């Protein structure tokens, strides 16, 4: 099994990779930091990966994407599994005061993923097999004052992935949109993590692997976030405006 991961040093991406490493997968990992890539590559090798290749790239630079996908192909051959996991957690305040920050955040969280997916999809369409998972967010389910810039990028990505899934289904390729809830990772270090809503990266990764293999369209992980977000989407505007969500 060959796997390409964009944003391979994120906590969730690493946890997913470990599950595939255990099965002897071969990897092409892309991230921005060589030292960290080397740490992750060594880890996956020890955990059973048959081969690990890495590439250092800032994925906000769309001009690199075609070449990266070509390199992944030449390193691995067929692209069986692709995980798009890169992104930044936007500082909402900064994105409100500066339109350039806003544009940059939409760029890395939406445009960059959409661009990569376009290159990847064109390869996988010809392969007529494989599975793609894209990390979205529950923040894309309803615009909220606390994070609507990030949320709108993820919402746009959600519709893009939905359409791509529609297109690719005729070619035997699965596309899954993943919407994690609260995950206990370094990215959420600022939040108190006691309580039943928090999940470990390992738990979320197990859900992602099952969805990639089973072909789910949208994965809320853990499962109860589907119902939490249904409620949040259903709150009437008049009430919602009074909340500070």
């Amino acid at each position: 099994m060959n796997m390409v991961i964009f944003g391979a040093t994120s906590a969730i991406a690493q946890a997913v990779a470990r599950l595939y490493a255990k099965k002897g997968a071969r990897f092409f990992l892309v991230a921005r930091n060589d030292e960290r890539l080397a740490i992750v590559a060594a880890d996956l090798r020890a955990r059973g990966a048959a081969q690990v290749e890495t590439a250092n790239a800032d994925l906000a630079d769309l001009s690199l994407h075609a070449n990266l996908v070509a390199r992944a192909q030449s390193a691995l051959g067929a692209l069986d599994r692709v995980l798009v996991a890169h992104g930044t957690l936007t500082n909402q305040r900064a994105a409100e005061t500066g339109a350039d920050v806003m544009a940059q955040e939409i760029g890395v969280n939406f445009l960059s993923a959409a661009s990569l997916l376009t290159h990847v999809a064109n390869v996988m369409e010809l392969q007529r097999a494989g599975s793609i998972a894209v990390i979205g967010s529950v923040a894309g389910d309803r615009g909220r004052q606390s994070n609507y810039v990030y949320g709108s990028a993820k919402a746009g990505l959600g519709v893009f992935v939905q359409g791509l899934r529609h297109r690719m289904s005729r070619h035997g390729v699965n596309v899954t949109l993943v919407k994690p809830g609260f995950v206990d990772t370094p990215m959420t270090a600022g939040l108190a993590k006691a309580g039943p809503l928090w999940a470990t990266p390992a738990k979320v990764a197990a859900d992602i692997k099952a969805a990639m293999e089973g072909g789910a369209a949208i994965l809320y992980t853990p499962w109860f976030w589907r119902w939490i977000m249904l409620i949040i989407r259903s709150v009437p505007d008049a009430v919602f405006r009074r909340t500070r969500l």
Partner: protein
Amino acid sequence: MDALHQRKDALSWGRAHHFTHHIAQPAFADELPTILKERGARPVLARGLGRSYGDSGLNADNVLIDMRALDHVRGFNPDTGVLDAEAGVTLKDILELCAQYEGRWFLPVTPGTKFVTLGGAIANDVHGKNHHGAGCFGNHVLSLRLMRSDGTVLTCSPDENTALFRATVGGMGLTGLILSARIALKSVPGLWVENEDIRYDTLDEFYALTNDSLEGWEYTVAWIDCLARGQATGRGIFSRSRHIASSRPAPPIRDPRIALPVNLPNIALNKITMAAFNALYIRRARRKPTRKAVPFDGAFYPLDAIGQFNRLYGRRGFYQYQCVIPTRVERDATRALLSEISQAGVGSFLAVLKTFGDKLSPGLMSFPMPGTTLALDFANAGASTLALLSRLDAITRAAGGRIYAAKDGRVSAADFQAGYPQWTDFARLIDPGFSSSFWRRVGAGAAA
């Protein structure tokens, strides 16, 4: 960007201490120097999976560095069984790696849960049911990398930076941040174990069974009915097991199958429910040993099947008491401890008795010594619980024993220091940028 976040959610396993901490949660070790700068004058302590019971893993109003994401395996040699891994790697990760390599290797020493980190296992110099043969976890650490508060990284081993190595093994995290360690896994015939459970009626029978088992059985431990009195004091179930070759497929390594989502009401555990449980539980085993082959997971980690079982003890949490009594007086002192507990009638159904062997750990502050160790939980009922534990401390101290820091949240400085006269040597090797709530309570500066 601020690396430290003020939070109140870091609890220890006993859930009896509620502190505010400044918490950092690095994704990679390259963030640690920045965190150590940002701490200012506040001392630091590493945190793993939070399985220490009292306050030895807490650092009230100061800095905790959550090491869980620093969980990368740096290398594993399947021919020699030498594993090099970051401190946040869990024993569960290591067991999965063992299964990956056809079950030829196993943890040389494991405590009663696989949900602890490598760093935590070293910092507490944990022991297991095979102490009589294998010693402590620290006996199997080949070397470790230690980051001091000034950012320097030292390699410490039995041959290099020896004093610091000995202080770090069992050093409760106070000598610096353990970044990674090389450990020697042990060669085993397989991941299945042969297990025998034997019901016994008196403390003397426990010692007789122990002596009969030390040769042929790698792992021994006894569950005891801590409410039994008089002649029956110390009665329980003696378990012994050893690795066997098996043609069966490697057993699964399980996550908790069920979890307690909330604290149980305090009324759930009382003398009547506990006596009923103990009376039923002891009937699980026969007097004639029954031998069966079982997966190691259920045999070594029965409580891992229930997530958050610590919530059993209600909102006020609980204390675990674990002490060791030296061989010379082990029978009398153990009987005295058990009598004190059964008279109070407040023990729990998780009570464990085991003998330690005479293999010395390199750890300066390691807990085990040749003798008998007793461990059991007490729901936190406030002053009456603390008073009982102090009475147990007096028995332990008079017997020349000591308590286990990883389990403690209340021992007096005088009783702790009496058990560890080497503490003054240890205090000189502590990193000045590191501290813990426990150490401020029992170490230098605490009123002895």
